């Protein structure tokens, strides 16, 4: 009994120290992120963007849109892509063996005609069938291919791309009119930049006009509201902070901009993971470091992509399960970077953080709950102490969420109503009173399923992007 008590006490201390270190790190990232937002907001001025449009100084961009059974959202999202403010770009949609009306909707909406085409097949992919071009938008190309997964579709799109910058985007997303303009600036400003990630925000509840959100309103469900807070925290504090520290490991698959040649050099997207966005970034870090090539992968809060977040718990759970399996696969694949000084801050800071706090986090948290419960039952833990610890953990999490909500309030396009802001405050609390625990459990399950469900995507239920 004495040994059990000692073990329980030891684990309690471990969990508390673990949480203290995690919170300290979060605070550091948050502060670094906040600084990055402040400097970033002044880095790209309106005068600069106007100069860019008026003069011939830009890099053309290929926007890559992999699509699988996206009949509800594909027309709205592609419509937003072809209407971007950018002097020279093309949009390449690859239907990855869609079995619904995705192709029909595209053909009708954009007047597509078949066009025999030759292109450089630098990345191996499943066979590509017909390639079509729009009669309405000369820069829009749509290709059909056998189903091979998102990465395979992206690789096919890279093969078809003609321009030096590529922007993989999700087909259920909408890009801000200036998103490409703002992201591509960073490639001009720094020759070493190989990839730029932008902010992803939830479009749920927004009122659309001209294919873009014009008025942000709170969505109906708390699941969506909590994700608004979650996204703000992840992008404005997390990614911005990691980028400021020079150790960014993820660029969201919803929107990123890459040098095409850099992606081709490392072999394109890896088809064996469901976290292809993170894996590509990790491989870009790894291969460039091995080759001794100077490279930077950065996050910029300015370029904004709107995406539809899951509106029901089931879809959200499947999404988080997939993300966590992708994380585990990617960390395992690049385990040699871990604590490897050759990889600088990526090896010595980002990798240990992701392993200890992101990959193992759910295990430690779930075992923590079990241990604390056991300690309560056998009477080795004072219930007051336990409650105070839980309250403290919630308060700290909520504090970071409120900071992220504060950053969101600084955007010109923000949730403008006072009631919406109060709901966001509430959502920041509510997240820790059920959803967080539920998603921790899902990630715990994903850890157990990582080997068995490898490559499994899971059904995503979506309402579709509102037209207007």
């Amino acid at each position: 009994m004495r040994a059990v008590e000692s073990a329980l006490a030891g684990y309690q201390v471990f969990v508390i120290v673990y949480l203290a270190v995690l919170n300290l790190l979060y605070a550091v990232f948050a502060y670094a992120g906040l600084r990055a937002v402040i400097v970033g907001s002044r880095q790209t001025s309106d005068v600069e963007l106007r100069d860019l449009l008026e003069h011939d100084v830009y890099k053309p961009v290929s926007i890559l849109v992999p699509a699988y059974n996206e009949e509800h959202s594909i027309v709205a999202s592609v419509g937003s892509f072809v209407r971007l403010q950018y002097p020279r770009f093309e949009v390449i949609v690859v239907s990855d063996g869609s079995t619904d009306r995705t192709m029909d909707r595209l053909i009708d909406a954009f007047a597509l005609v078949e066009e025999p085409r030759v292109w450089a097949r630098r990345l191996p992919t499943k066979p590509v069938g017909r390639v079509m071009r729009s009669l309405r938008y000369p820069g829009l190309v749509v290709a059909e291919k056998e189903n091979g997964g998102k990465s395979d579709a992206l690789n096919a799109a890279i093969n078809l791309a003609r321009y030096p910058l590529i922007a993989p985007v999700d087909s259920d997303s909408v890009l801000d009119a200036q998103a490409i303009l703002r992201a591509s600036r960073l490639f001009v400003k720094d020759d070493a930049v190989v990839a730029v990630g932008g902010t992803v925000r939830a479009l749920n509840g927004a009122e659309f006009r001209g294919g873009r959100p014009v008025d942000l309103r709170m969505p109906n469900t708390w699941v969506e509201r909590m994700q608004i807070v979650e996204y703000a925290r992840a992008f404005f504090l997390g990614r911005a902070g990691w980028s400021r520290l020079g150790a960014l490991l993820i660029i969201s698959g919803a929107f990123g901009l890459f040098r095409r040649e850099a992606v081709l050099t490392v072999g394109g997207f890896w088809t064996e993971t469901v976290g292809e966005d993170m894996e590509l970034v990790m491989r870009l870090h790894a291969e460039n470091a091995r080759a001794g090539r100077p490279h930077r992968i950065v996050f910029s809060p300015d370029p904004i992509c709107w995406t539809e977040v899951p509106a029901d718990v089931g879809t959200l759970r499947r999404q988080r399960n997939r993300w966590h399996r992708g994380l585990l696969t990617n960390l395992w694949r690049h385990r040699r970077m871990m604590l490897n000084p050759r990889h600088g801050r990526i090896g010595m800071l980002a990798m240990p953080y992701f392993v200890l706090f992101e990959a193992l986090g759910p295990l430690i948290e779930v075992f923590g709950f079990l241990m604390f419960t056991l300690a309560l039952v056998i009477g080795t833990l004072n219930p007051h102490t336990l409650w105070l610890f839980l309250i403290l953990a919630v308060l700290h999490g909520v504090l970071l969420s409120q900071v992220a909500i504060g950053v969101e309030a600084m955007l010109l396009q923000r949730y403008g109503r006072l009631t919406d802001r109060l709901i966001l405050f509430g959502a920041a609390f509510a997240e820790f009173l059920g959803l967080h625990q539920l998603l921790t459990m899902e990630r715990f399950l994903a850890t157990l399923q990582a080997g068995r469900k490898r490559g499994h995507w899971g059904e995503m239920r979506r309402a579709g992007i509102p037209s207007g």
Partner: protein
Amino acid sequence: MWRRSGDVAFALVFALAIAIEAVPLGYLTWTLLGRIGSERTDGPLVTILVGVVASATLALVIVMAYVLGYQLVSARLEAALVERRQTWVTRWLRVLDGSEPEPPAPLRREAIEALVGLREVLRGSQSDRVASLLESYGAAAAFKRAATAGRVPARLEAIEALASARVPSTLTALVRAVNDSQPVVRVAAARAAARTLATVEEPGARELGASALARALQRGHLPVGIVEEVLVLAEMAAAPIVSDLLLRDGVPSATLRAALDGVGRLQLLVFAEEVARFLTHPDAEVRAAALRATGRLGFLAETSRSAVIAALEAEEDFIRIHATSTARLLPRDQALVTLSERLGDRSWWVRRAAADAMASLGAPGLAELGRAARSHQDRFARDIAEQALRERVPALVQAVAG
């Protein structure tokens, strides 16, 4: 995209909140670590925990109060500022057309912002008058001071204002900032300096400014794209900057590439001979830039033909791509033969460049493309020739149909 007011204050509020929370939390962690292996008593721990929870609550309340306050007042303050700025725009326009006297100094922030905005919008003598007003009211000097000292965000704002104001007297300070220790400041200052230099009309002063900026660009190790942008923004002053960069020894290859690309982009035909000198440069990237510039200038001297033909056989794909595009400037028959051979290059991009170059040669090029599409010995050459022809069809139909 962002509201710039209140963000620095928010960072300070956050730092304060974290400090309020971190100190008791650190004490708690220290206490817990000290308890490992010792007899436990929960009493003091609970007391410490209550203190930590109280401090965390206080930190949270501070942050939430700021955010809520910000939400309430920011939109209202901004709307009022926009209205005041609009009033000043109207007033300044009356000053400019002489129907109202100049307002007395000192000016309020919105008055200066309105003036800076007008400098961007107006053209000709009215715009020059705005620049002199910015100078006479001391706004240019204030921006200059803010641009060279202080915190990075404030400096960036001041440099942005100077980029719009384009007051020649601020050029020296901006050129100095091109060699700042902060890369973001260097980039912003280079752009602002180029925009300002473009407004200097007196040739002697322009030459001096261009020379100073060229030296700063070399020392500043700016990215290629930014140097190119500086050349475009410098407008009439681009030629002296390019001249300085191409003729000087020891210029970093990245800057050299940008200067060569600037020659092509701005069609500075006067530098055609200088560009030709770089067609055999040891740095492959510089050679490629020289080939690009030659292609854009549309002029290939007889003495440089051999360099272009040699580049067609280069090991690096990117050299062959640019050499192929430039090969259209060879004498027509030689160009058609050379490009037809390149249609069968091992790189798809070279084949593509060859097909595009042939199509750009007009009827003879299209005829040769047609022959290649039918009977070129290389299958890939036939494919790319066919595609290039097919892509031209809509344009040709449109040209014929008017």
